[in-house]
């Protein structure tokens, strides 16, 4: 007797066998016990499968219990936001606000706070002693991020082993060395004869250093006078600065007015309303000057680089001179030993008797030219920017289609990605400050993290643009060219809207928040997808 195979039996049971075969099988099983038993066994299996699958053996998770709860951000985001908010608050109250208070008492407003942090951070290697709290905060943050990452990538004992190893490594790291001497007060004076064998940080309305500091001097003050000897750098945020003594290192000043009449062994960097390098002053290195006006009568051994409104040169410049600004007068006593360039709207005035290595090279910047050129440049850049974004978008679509689709899908839910984007912006800004601070204590990872934010910010427009294109032209069929067409239209709209004064800024802000949120959520989806365990294959 010829039996029906298992496939036919299953299709028969499922009502999928064609009528002719079905009739044959019906007739066959009346006589064939084997096929009849097989049908019964398969049916039994079907019932077992159905009941196992439909059995209500698990309660609904709480977060799915009500639709209302579903629309709230998930606990992860809430917790993350809470942690960051707390971190930011703590960072501000412990890290920034005391400095603000000191600055205020030293006669400063707080408007230049950020640039101060950046510049002082970049110029001074002793921050570590001042910002222990920030370090700890940063480390906690880094550990949280690392644990999150490790948990996602590795599982169980491996993750624990990695974390334990990292902790041991952290414990094995050497402690930071000695602290700077900090002085606060209404009027601070280091009298002549006093020697400070350390870095010195001073805050107060008036600071005067007549003695010796064997280290750097950092001053936040209304008035700083140095007549003594500083073996390190002088970094000053001050209303008025006067350096009349000897500085073996560099002088970096952010000040309203600065008078340099002593000896500075290395370089001078000055951000000032006015700078005066008096004739007896001697700068061993070069000078970088950003100033409203500058009277440079003293000597500098190397180059002068200046962005200066009005410059009067009467001293000696050993190296090259490059000045951009409103006017330049080279007085009769001046001695420019290297080539000199002036960029400005007016011809420089060179008095007779001035010594020049070669005639001053003049680059005339005419307002009309600049305006025309800048309009053309804006247009050119707009077109270039549009093309660039489109190319990046197409590349993303072609190289990472899964990520592109996931991100685009996330962009479609509008509210969530904008929220996540805003959170990322806050976090990004927080990390930027943190990163800059950490740079000085030797951890570049914070900065690297911030660097990763830039490309995300750039591709944000691609996804919002494509979403916009889809909205206008309808959901595309599964053809790359159709998606690209929608992307092109959407990007064009964003770019044009972005050119509108004021409103354009808001458009870009919305695009950045929305798009970065979508990209981050897209990453989140993709990373979940990739890190999920693979179902084992049957043997």
């Amino acid at each position, binding site marked *: 007797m010829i039996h029906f195979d298992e496939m036919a039996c299953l299709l028969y049971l*499922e009502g999928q066998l064609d009528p002719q075969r079905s009739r044959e099988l019906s007739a066959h099983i009346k006589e064939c016990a084997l096929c009849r038993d*097989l049908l*019964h066994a398969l049916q039994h299996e079907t019932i077992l499968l159905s009941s*196992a*699958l439909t059995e209500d053996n698990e309660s609904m998770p709480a977060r*799915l219990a009500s639709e209302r709860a579903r629309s709230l951000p998930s606990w992860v985001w809430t917790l993350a936001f809470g942690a960051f908010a707390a971190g930011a608050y703590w960072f501000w109250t412990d890290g920034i606000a005391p400095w603000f208070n000191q600055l205020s008492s030293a006669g400063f407003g707080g408007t230049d706070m950020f640039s101060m942090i950046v510049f002082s951070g970049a110029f001074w290697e002793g921050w570590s002693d001042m910002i222990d709290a920030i370090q700890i905060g940063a480390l906690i943050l880094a550990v949280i991020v690392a644990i999150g990452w490790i948990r996602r990538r590795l599982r169980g004992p491996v993750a624990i082993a990695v974390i334990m190893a990292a902790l041991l490594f952290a414990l094995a790291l050497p402690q930071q060395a000695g602290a700077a001497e900090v002085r606060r007060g209404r009027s601070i004076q280091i009298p002549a004869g006093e020697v400070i064998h350390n870095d010195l940080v001073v805050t107060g309305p008036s600071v005067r250093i007549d003695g010796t500091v064997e280290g750097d001097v950092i001053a936040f003050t209304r008035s700083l006078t140095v007549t003594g000897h500083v073996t390190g750098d002088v970094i000053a945020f001050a209303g008025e600065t006067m350096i009349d003594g000897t500085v073996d290192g560099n002088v970096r000043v952010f000040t309203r007015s600065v008078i340099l009449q002593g000896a500075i062994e290395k370089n001078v960097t000055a951000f000032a309303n006015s700078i005066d390098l008096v004739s007896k002053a001697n700068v061993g290195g070069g000078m970088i000057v950003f100033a409203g006006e500058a009277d440079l009568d003293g000597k500098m051994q190397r180059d002068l680089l200046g962005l200066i409104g009005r410059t009067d040169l009467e001293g000696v410049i050993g190296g090259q001179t490059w000045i951009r600004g409103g006017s330049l007068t080279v007085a009769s006593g001046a001695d420019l030993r290297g080539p000199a360039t002036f960029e400005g709207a007016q011809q420089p005035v060179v008095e007779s008797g001035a010594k020049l290595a070669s005639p001053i090279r003049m680059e005339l910047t005419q307002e009309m030219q600049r305006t025309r050129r800048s309009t053309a440049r804006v247009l050119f850049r707009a077109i270039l920017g549009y093309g660039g974004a489109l190319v990046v978008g197409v590349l993303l679509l072609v190289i990472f289609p899964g990520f592109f689709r996931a991100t685009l899908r996330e962009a479609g839910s509008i509210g969530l990605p904008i929220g996540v984007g805003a959170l990322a912006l806050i976090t990004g800004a927080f990390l930027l400050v943190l990163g800059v601070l950490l740079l000085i204590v030797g951890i570049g990872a914070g900065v690297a993290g911030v660097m990763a934010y830039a490309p995300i910010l750039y591709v944000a427009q691609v996804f919002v643009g494509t979403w916009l294109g889809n909205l206008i032209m309808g959901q595309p069929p599964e053809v790359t060219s159709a998606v690209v067409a929608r992307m092109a239209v959407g990007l064009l709209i964003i770019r044009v809207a972005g050119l509108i004064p004021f409103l354009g800024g808001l458009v870009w802000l919305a695009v950045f928040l929305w798009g970065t949120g979508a990209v981050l959520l897209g990453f989140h989806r993709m990373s979940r*997808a990739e890190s999920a365990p*693979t179902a084992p294959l*049957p043997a």
Partner: protein
Amino acid sequence: MSPAEQAVAQERIALAKAGSAEAWGELYGQYAPAIFRFCRRAMPTREDAEDATMDIFIKVRQKLSQYDATRPFSAWLYTVAANHCWDLLRRRKLRQDLETGEVENMPLEHPDPGQLERLIERRTGQEMRRALDKLPARSRMALVLRYYAEMSYDDIAATLGVRRTFVGVVLLRARHQLREILEGQGGARLAAGGAT
């Protein structure tokens, strides 16, 4: 579902389509447990199932205007859910084992009915689910679509992206794999053996 219940459901759907949050909430309350269970069966982990359920209802709410009221709502819902879950699984590259070429190797022998009965008798739902969890994604998905969501062969074919004629093969193959898992490592090879 009785005609009266169907009328209530249709009214809820119409109200939800018109933007009623209350009606949407009721629809959610009515169908979320079944969709969660569907996702729990189809996805590898509970977290995946929770996420998928949330995403599916977001999608459903967005696509509600596209729902054709002449079709049963639950069938449409399962189609959206199935497409979503399968899309996720596919992205996880769980398809290495699912090329149609393997279908050719499908054993078509007659298994021994007595042995099959012995294998499945006294099996608890939990044992079956544990074995189902060990199936490759497509096999598990096929069984869930057919025996949980009660989808037609046409819909299963559309969801899994296979030809309709292969749906039976995929289902039978999934059953064989399930039997192999139930048999355990040391058991006799019932799935492929038996009388002819």
